[in-house]
């Protein structure tokens, strides 16, 4: 018998958020290590990719035209190859990082 971990956790948080105690510096002073940086990047890319997918699917629900129409519009903008490359890179980079680092987590 006794308290569950969940009860203990929520009791801790209720008491401490009520008391408005100052938090001692942690992320701002602790020396960054590679594992720390990789982990938070994995989380950041994951959140960004997820929100991107959600935005895409909301667009699919709300926008009037179909995908090829909007693609043709982008093509009509005649953006320079550098810009297109940068756009593709900014999509592929977080995706690749999250995928490869994810494999590292799975292994």
């Amino acid at each position, binding site marked *: 018998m006794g308290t569950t971990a969940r009860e*203990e956790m929520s009791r801790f948080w209720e008491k401490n958020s009520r008391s408005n105690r100052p938090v001692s510096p942690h992320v701002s002073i602790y020396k960054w290590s590679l594992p720390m940086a990789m982990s938070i990047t994995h989380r950041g890319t994951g959140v960004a990719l997820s929100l991107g997918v959600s935005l895409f699917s909301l667009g699919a629900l709300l926008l009037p035209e179909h*995908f090829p129409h909007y693609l043709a519009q982008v093509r009509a903008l005649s953006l320079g190859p550098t810009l297109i490359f940068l756009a593709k890179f900014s999509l592929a980079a977080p995706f690749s990082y999250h995928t490869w680092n994810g494999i590292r987590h799975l292994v």
Partner: protein
Amino acid sequence: ALALLRARPRGAALALLGSALLRRPAALGAAAARCAPARDSHGPPRQGHGSSKAASLHWTGERAVSMLLLGLLPAAYLCPGPAVDYSLAAALTLHGHWGLGQVITDYVHGDVPIKVANTGLYILSALTFAGLCHFNYQDVGICKAVAMLWSL
């Protein structure tokens, strides 16, 4: 101020030990040395009152979906089509839903904010899945869309 910071953990440990006498002593003691023998005396894990395998099953489920999603990536490249499209929609949404759920668990505290955040997440994931399925049905589909986008 530094003295206060150092004094507080000791005071907290004493308070926790006091309450630990009344409750099941978990790894609450501030002294790590006290924790090690306590862990050894645990013996075989007891599935007692109030325990459930839900969390560990969830963890396993997360890994399973991650691997499924990973396998879908070459599948999307090699055999694009509605089967992969809908599987991607499902795996992508579930993976994202569980991932964002972990982020909420880590950073959101308090019973009401947690409930609000999780409800919002459910709505977002439901809409995402609906939108992706709609896209697969009414539009070109995920695999084709990526191929078209990259041909730009």
